[in-house]
């Protein structure tokens, strides 16, 4: 067990380094040079060169990367060009706002997905199964940026029940902000709910066909007991899917946050791109990608802890 944990951690290290390299190179992909946004067009060349030197942009790329990586390791992501504040101070509160929506959305998606998927598996082939499948595939297919607008039209424009944008009073806490959170959370939850419902349906119906479940039925066990057995066996695989969906919410929130003007990391990234604030863009992408890697790592470890079969299989093969 410990060996697998260490192996998995060791495997994550090169990934993290690779991710940091891509984030570093993002800035150098940009047309012109990274200092371009700092230097007005009519700047005399010698002053432009001074500014480049001050930011270290005149040094070779590998040196720039190592310097940047060293700074990142100490939590220094540089200064945001647009606000002159440290990038980390801009990114972390925004990520916290994104997480609030993502947690709500994944809880909603899991509850809806598990209920619908289980129901569909138990009623395989019937009308209710087909209706749930249709809902599931629709949830998976819907462009969230469109669904968000439709929800705004229905609940804000036509019914006037909920606010269309913003997060309300930043100090109000969830008690004061939930009306602002409701529509973006529902919007974010649709795709994971669809994916989870489909996976739950297929996992549960597979377990239902196992011989031990038929044996339990033959033994006359009440359905609620059988459900517990089914859940225990379907859980590890489903957990992986739910974890991946949660991780995806962190990166996928950019469109939904833009629609609802929710001050999260996606909204921040969007404004960084349009202000050509490359350090801010780089820092936001890096923090989100690291969250994604960590979430996947946590899911893998949790899945292994829950599923002894995986553990022994790995031990056998390794």
């Amino acid at each position, binding site marked *: 067990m410990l060996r697998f944990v260490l192996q998995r951690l060791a495997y994550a290290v090169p990934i993290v380094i690779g991710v940091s*390299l891509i984030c570093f190179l993002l800035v150098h992909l940009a047309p012109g040079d990274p200092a371009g946004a700092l230097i007005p067009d009519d700047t005399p060349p010698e002053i432009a060169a001074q500014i480049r030197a001050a930011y270290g942009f005149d040094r070779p790329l590998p040196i720039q990367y190592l310097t940047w990586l060293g700074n990142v390791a100490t939590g220094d992501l540089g200064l945001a060009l647009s606000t002159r504040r440290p990038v980390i101070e801009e990114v972390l509160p925004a990520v916290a706002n994104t997480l609030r929506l993502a947690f709500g959305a994944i809880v909603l998606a899991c509850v809806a997905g598990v209920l619908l998927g289980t129901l569909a598996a138990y009623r395989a082939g019937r009308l209710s199964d087909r209706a749930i499948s249709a809902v599931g595939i629709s949830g998976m297919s819907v*462009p969230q*940026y469109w669904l968000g607008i439709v929800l705004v039209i229905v609940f804000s424009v036509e019914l006037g029940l909920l606010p269309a944008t913003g997060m309300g009073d930043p100090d109000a806490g969830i008690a004061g902000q939930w009306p602002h959170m409701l529509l973006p959370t529902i919007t974010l939850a649709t795709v994971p709910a669809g994916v989870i419902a489909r996976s739950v349906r297929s996992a549960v119906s597979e377990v239902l066909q196992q011989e031990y479940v038929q044996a339990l039925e033959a033994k006359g066990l009440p359905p609620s007991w059988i459900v517990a057995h089914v859940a225990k066996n379907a859980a590890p695989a489903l957990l992986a899917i739910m974890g991946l969906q949660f991780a995806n919410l962190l*990166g996928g929130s950019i469109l939904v946050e*833009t629609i609802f003007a929710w001050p999260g990391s996606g909204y921040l*990234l969007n404004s960084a*791109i349009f202000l050509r604030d490359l350090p801010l*863009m780089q820092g936001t992408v890096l923090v989100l990608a690291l969250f994604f890697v960590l979430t996947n790592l946590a899911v893998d470890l949790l899945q292994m802890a829950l599923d002894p079969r995986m553990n022994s299989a790995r031990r056998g093969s390794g």
Partner: protein
Amino acid sequence: MIHDQKTLAAAGAPTVSRGLLGDMGRRLARDPITLVAGAVLVAIAVAALLAPWIAPADPNQTSIVNRLRPPGTPGHPLGTDELGRDLLSRVIWGGRLTLFMGFTPVVVATLVGGFLGILAGYAGGWVNSAIMRTMDVFYAFPSVLLAVAISGALGGGLMNGLLALTLVFIPPIARVAESVALQVRTQPYVEAAAATGASATRIVTGHVLKNVAGPILVYASSLISISIVIASGLSFLGLGVSPPDAEWGLMLSSLRQSVYVAPLNAVIPGAMIFLTSLCFNTMTDGLRHALNVKE
């Protein structure tokens, strides 16, 4: 119940096999939902292709007096947009760029990712490690984030959007291709070919490619709906197609400003993205089912 259907189908089935494609066609013919989804997609694609001939008006003809007319206005069945352009014509024309932006990255990524994956799976060793560990790094980004970050860094625009999306889809396709190629490599017929002295190129083109193409294509087809939704999302954010071109994501983005005045108009372009993505997902589900591919 399921077993009964299978038994009945087996009993009633003709004894002569019609081959993989024949069986697939027969299963598809009995699947009305997949057929409907396919028909809708064909209709959307044909309308987009024939846009210059069937669109009722010039998609870029603005009219200050006819701005934001509601759907059902005489002469404008779907109404007009914020610049008075005919929405039906723009929806028909918009299908061109939207489908192009959705398809191209998946096609290119299938070629590149398929090549890399087969190479990695067949060659093994350090070639495999070099290719697949690089793919792992790209895989460590959520797809929407990677697409937005790359196209944002490159400065937006159609070509940069296509490039970003292609980079997003290469790693997952390469992973599938690698795992299938690994399986095929150890098959007896490949070993037999190697034993008869066939060259690596001949084994790959003659045996491996034929057997890995199916699973790769099935997987790639399932990415088209995602690609269309993300591609339109890039245009929606202003990172893809630029105005005044008609593209559904971009149309949604500009009509969004008018939700208080003309909510129905604002819904139409996004509904087209949804319909297209839904039909693609339904179709790939049906195809998987017909090909007996397990998820």
